[in-house]
C-alpha cells in the first residue's frame, strides 16, 4: 500500500520502504535510513557541482540550471562565500542550502570570536557535517536535501583543502568531488586528471569542459556556468573567477569539446 504514496520515479527504481521510510528516526530491518536515502535522491537529481583541489589552490564550479528565460543573467548565485578564506558550492534543494550556508557563516564567525584565529577548513567541514547529521536523528525534523563542497584555506598553516558534506552528515577531504546529475561522468573525468600537478587555471578549464560535455542540449534546461576559486591570485580569498578569465576558460573548453567531436566525425568518415 505504501507504493501508492511514493512518486512514480522512486517506486519504479527502489525497493519498497514498507513503512520504514516514514521517519528519519526509524531504521529498516536491513539497517537503512530511508528518509536519508531519499534526501540523497534530491541531491542526485539536481544541477552538477564540482570541486577540485589543485596544487596552488581550490576551484569550484556549478551548472546553474536556468529555470526560466525571465531570470536575470548572473543572478541567484550558487557559489557562496562562508568567510574570508572559505567558500562552498552546493547541489540540491536551494532553500535547504540557504540554511546550511548561514550555519557555515556563523561557525566561521564564532570560531574567530572564541579562538582568535580563522577556522581551519577541516574544522568548518566537520562542524557543518555535524549540523547536517543532527537533522537525521529527529522525528520532528527532516534531513537536508543538499550536498555541499567546501573549499578553505588556513592562513596559519598556509594549507588549502577541499571537503564534501553529504545529506547523511558524513564529510571527507577530497582531491576532487562532484555532486548532482552529472556526478558519475564528472568523477570519471576528474580521475583522469593528474591531481598532484594540476593548477587552478587548468582545473577551471577542465570543470568547464566536464559540465559542458555532460549537459545534454536536447534534454536538459539551459544553464549558466558559475566558477569560483581560492588561490594565491585571489590572495587566498574565496572569489568568483574574474569574468574575463571565466569567459576565456569557457570558450577554450567549448573549443576543445568541438575539436574532439570533429576528430570523432573524421574517424567515422574514414571507415
Amino acid at each position, binding site marked *: 500500500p505504501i507504493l501508492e504514496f511514493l512518486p512514480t520515479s522512486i517506486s519504479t527504481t527502489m525497493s519498497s520502504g514498507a513503512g520504514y521510510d516514514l521517519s528519519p528516526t526509524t531504521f529498516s530491518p536491513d539497517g537503512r535510513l530511508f528518509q536519508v536515502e531519499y534526501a540523497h535522491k534530491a541531491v542526485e537529481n539536481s544541477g552538477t557541482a564540482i570541486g577540485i583541489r589543485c596544487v596552488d589552490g581550490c576551484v569550484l564550479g556549478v551548472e546553474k540550471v536556468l529555470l526560466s528565460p525571465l531570470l536575470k543573467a548572473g543572478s541567484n548565485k550558487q557559489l557562496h562565500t562562508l568567510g574570508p578564506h572559505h567558500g562552498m558550492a552546493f547541489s540540491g534543494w536551494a532553500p535547504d542550502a540557504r540554511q546550511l550556508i548561514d550555519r557555515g557563516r556563523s561557525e566561521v564567525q564564532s570560531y574567530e*570570536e572564541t579562538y582568535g*584565529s580563522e577556522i581551519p577548513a*577541516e574544522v568548518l567541514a566537520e562542524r557543518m557535517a555535524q549540523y547536517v547529521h543532527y537533522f537525521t536523528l529527529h522525528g520532528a525534523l527532516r534531513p537536508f536535501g543538499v550536498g555541499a563542497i567546501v573549499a578553505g584555506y588556513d592562513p*596559519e598553516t598556509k594549507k588549502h583543502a577541499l571537503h564534501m558534506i553529504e545529506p547523511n552528515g558524513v564529510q571527507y577531504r577530497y582531491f576532487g568531488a562532484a555532486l548532482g546529475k552529472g556526478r558519475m561522468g564528472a568523477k570519471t573525468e576528474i580521475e583522469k586528471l593528474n591531481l598532484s600537478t594540476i593548477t587552478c587555471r587548468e582545473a577551471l578549464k577542465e570543470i568547464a569542459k566536464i559540465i559542458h560535455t555532460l549537459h545534454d542540449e536536447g534534454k536538459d534546461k539551459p544553464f549558466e556556468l558559475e566558477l569560483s576559486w581560492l588561490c594565491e591570485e585571489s590572495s587566498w580569498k574565496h572569489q568568483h573567477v574574474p569574468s574575463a578569465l571565466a569567459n576565456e576558460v569557457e570558450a577554450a573548453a567549448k573549443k576543445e569539446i568541438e575539436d574532439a567531436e570533429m576528430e570523432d566525425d573524421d574517424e567515422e568518415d574514414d571507415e
Partner: protein
Amino acid sequence: MSGAFESGARKGEVATGTTIMAVAFEGGVVLGADSRVSTGTYIANRVSDKVAALHDSIYMCRSGSAADTQAISDYVRYFLASHATEINRPPTVKTAATLARKLCYENKDALMAGVIVGGYDPIEGGSVYVIPLGGTLMKMPFAIGGSGSTYIYGAVDANYKPNMTKEECQEFVKKSIAHAMARDGSSGGIIRLVTVDATGTTRDYIPGDQLPYGP
C-alpha cells in the same frame, strides 16, 4: 596598571599580591613570578607557583584573587585541550590568550584577575599577551603585572632592549622581579622562572637568599 586593586580585596580573601613578568624572544618566551600569597598581612604561602601551565608550551602568570585566577587557568586549560584535539596540532598562544580574555571580559564584574599569557607556537614563535583587570587583550614584546610591578616600570623601560637572547631575557626577568620584591610588601619568597621554546619547557627557581638584588 594593576596595583591599586589590593585595597579592593574582599576581607579575608586570599590575594596574590604579586610581581609577574613575561618577555618574548625570537624562539620563545621567559615567564617569571614571585611566590608570596597573602591574606592581609599573613603570608598564607611563601612558595606558591603563580605560573600555571595551560598547554605544553603555553603558560599563564596569575595576579589578583588566587581563586579567580586558578578558576580561569583551569577553564582555559580545559578549552585548550579540546581545541588542540579538534585542530590536531599545538594551539597558538593567541588562541590561549583569546580564551582567557573572553572569560575575563564577560565576567569582569565578578572577577579580580590580571594575567599574562606567554608561550611558544610554530606559527608566531614566542609571544606575550597581557590581560589586565577589565579584560582588554594586548600583545606586547614584554609585560609586567601585579602589585609589585608598579615599582619597576622605570627599571624595565630602562633595561629592556629589543632582540634579546634567551639568556639575556632570563637575566632581565630575574633582576626586575628581584627589584620589585625588594620594595613591594606583597611580593617576596623565591623567583620562579619558566622558559619556553621550540625544544620544550624548562622550569627553574631562584632561592630567596640568592636573589640578584635585595636585602
